[in-house]
């Protein structure tokens, strides 16, 4: 079995432009880490309940919950995937209770609308709370294999993060905050979170599809992350078209030089009712496919030049269900992402 490209990484952040399937990739990555016998926590922070839908379970509460087992590894060991749906309001209340032991005062905050203010209106605070909770799940001092009060310790955490356009800002919010808060407990906390995010224990993967804008945004995202010293991981190219045709066949399909007679003969031999609609349809589809493949190849070359490990996942024609997730997880494992 291949080895992983990311030894020692505990926090995998997965981002991507809207529509590229970043949540799917995050889920598949979590499953594939679990299929290395690891205990994995998959976190979502955008309030979509996407994890519950993908894994076909009840909507997730603000609490770590086991949702699936990984594929068995070579020794037959299966790790588990746990999931956590992080919402800012619960995170704030928990944070206040944990760090400040606010009893009556906590209620006063709520009564005066401070909780509401902090989580929905004051910009940036949401991101601080969301990243803070991820940090809390990743920090040392949790115990492996138990469900003690401080929480179970995971071998890896996968974060289904906000989209590429916002990721540097999202992860760097603690850096900004540390600048704003100057001193005090918030600054100390913000500094610790940034230390984890910038360490070798964290990588940020970017999901893209082989189209112009998403590839451009991925390149921009990598540059932005590097500009604020956040560790860039790999690029996952998702929704790749099927590669049933060889390069020569593609070329012939593209310039319309496919042998029509041979195609008619083959189709008849296969027992199909051959008419012009069928033959023209197939030839047209072939040309269309060749055009798209050529565009994909030009974008693929751009991705290759980004200088980071690249993984590819196919577009599953009937969509991604739980079985599909396991299939994608297996492919990520084969390619060394987990």
């Amino acid at each position, binding site marked *: 079995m291949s080895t992983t490209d990311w030894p020692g990484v505990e926090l995998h952040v997965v981002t991507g432009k*809207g529509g590229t399937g970043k949540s799917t990739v995050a889920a598949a990555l979590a499953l594939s880490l679990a299929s290395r016998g690891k205990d994995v926590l998959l976190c979502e922070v955008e309030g979509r309940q996407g994890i519950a839908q993908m894994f076909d379970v009840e909507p997730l509460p603000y609490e770590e919950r086991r949702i699936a087992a990984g594929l068995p590894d070579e020794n037959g060991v299966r790790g588990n995937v746990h999931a956590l749906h992080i919402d800012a309001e619960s995170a704030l209340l928990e944070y206040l209770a944990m760090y400040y032991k606010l009893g009556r005062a906590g209620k006063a905050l709520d009564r005066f609308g401070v909780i509401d203010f902090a989580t929905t209106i004051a910009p940036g605070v949401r991101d601080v709370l969301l990243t803070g909770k991820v940090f809390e799940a990743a920090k040392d001092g949790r115990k492996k294999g138990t469900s003690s009060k401080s929480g179970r310790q995971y071998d890896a955490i996968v974060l289904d993060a906000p989209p590429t356009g916002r990721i540097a800002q999202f992860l760097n919010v603690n850096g900004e905050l540390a600048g704003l808060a*100057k001193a*005090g407990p918030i600054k100390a906390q913000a500094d610790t979170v940034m230390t984890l995010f910038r360490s070798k224990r964290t990588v940020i993967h970017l999901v893209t599809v082989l189209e112009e804008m998403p590839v*451009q945004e991925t390149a921009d995202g990598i540059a932005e992350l590097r500009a604020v010293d956040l560790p860039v991981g790999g690029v996952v190219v998702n929704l790749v078209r099927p590669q049933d045709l060889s390069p020569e066949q593609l070329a012939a399909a593209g310039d319309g030089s496919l042998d029509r007679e041979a195609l008619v003969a083959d189709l008849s031999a296969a027992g*199909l009712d051959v008419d012009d609609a069928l033959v023209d349809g197939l030839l047209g589809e072939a040309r269309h496919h060749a055009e798209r493949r050529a565009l994909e190849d030009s974008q693929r070359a751009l991705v290759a030049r980004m200088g980071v490990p690249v993984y590819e996942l196919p577009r599953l024609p009937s*969509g991604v269900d739980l079985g599909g997730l396991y299939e994608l997880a297996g492919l990520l494992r084969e390619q060394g992402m987990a």
Partner: protein
Amino acid sequence: MNWLDCCASREWHEREEWREQMSTRTTRVGPLATTPAPAPALDVDALLDDPATEIIVCCGSGGVGKTTTSAALALRAAERGRKVVVLTIDPARRLAQSMGIEALDNTPRPVTGIAAGTGSLDAMMLDMKRTFDEVVESQASPEKAKAILENPFYVALSSSFAGTQEYMAMEKLGQLHRDARAEGTYDLIVVDTPPSRSALDFLDAPERLSSFLDGKFIRLLLAPARGPAKLMGVGFSLMTKAVTKIIGATVLQDLQMFVTAFDTLFGGFRQRAQQTFELLQADGTAFLVVAAPEPDALREAAYFVERLSGEHMPLAGLVVNRASTKPASDLGADEAMAAAERLRRRNSDAGITPGLLHLHADRVRIVEREQLLRDRFTAAHPGVATAVVPALPSDVHDLDGLRRVGDLLAGKSAR
């Protein structure tokens, strides 16, 4: 037969009758077994040509082609004689260049190269910080404006934190609309909405700004500037203590200074936010929900449709971008796969035909899946007029590309 048996048998008969009725009505089973009526077609040209349409807002989740759709609608409207301005948030670089708006100066610029006629097209890209600064400058005295613009909280709020974009897009829309009314510069404004992390951010922006301004917390932060804090009672001092403990006294002071300086602007802000919200509910406004035939995007679209009707905001229809085109022949996916398999078994080096059949099967499955997703959307939201735009082979970066998208939106085959 005693009466119990009688009842039972009657019940049984009724049930059988019901079953028969169901089975003659439809062959499918399940509570929603009636065949849904197809979604009515969205008449884009009628919408664009109607002089009563003053604002078109395109909303939807990220990556579904909102920006391209907005630009294509604006161009089409202009070439059909409207005086249009399109407000985009984050267009692809090459599209922005082709429209002449790569400069971020927050002012609408004329787009060159549109077909001659009575219409015109201006475009602008939203600079949220600039918009925010302009609002401050227009509302406060020069010294006060300077103090606000230099406050660290203002700098963070106006440029780097999420959420501000939504406020500012709505603010700019309000500005453009007021100017257009006053000077007759435009008769149609097309707005692209920011790629919100959730649909809520955009719709709630004006409302939230209002509630922010009315919020108890803000009032309390302002309290020291207005009168002795002890009047506020025990709850207040508890709250202040808690806030101080968490964010530190210096930060609280900074924040208080910022809010106090901002206080003068509040009245104006609230009024504008309220006006914008009403503008969005007005008859001249049309919302287009943009989606792709994917479960997430359609779920978001469904959410939007429900929210819009809940807020009494006028929904014009749904645009489904990036749809896969239906194959010309009616060869099914399974049949194609079986034929490919037969060919392979017969001859392991069967040339290109099995590959073509695989591609065909793949496409049929995707088209069927997309159709199913759209049918489900229609079943849950019947009557939402829909335009389906096929996926284009490459990104759009010029006016010709936008015209092609416009044709497709209007249900005309591509030129």
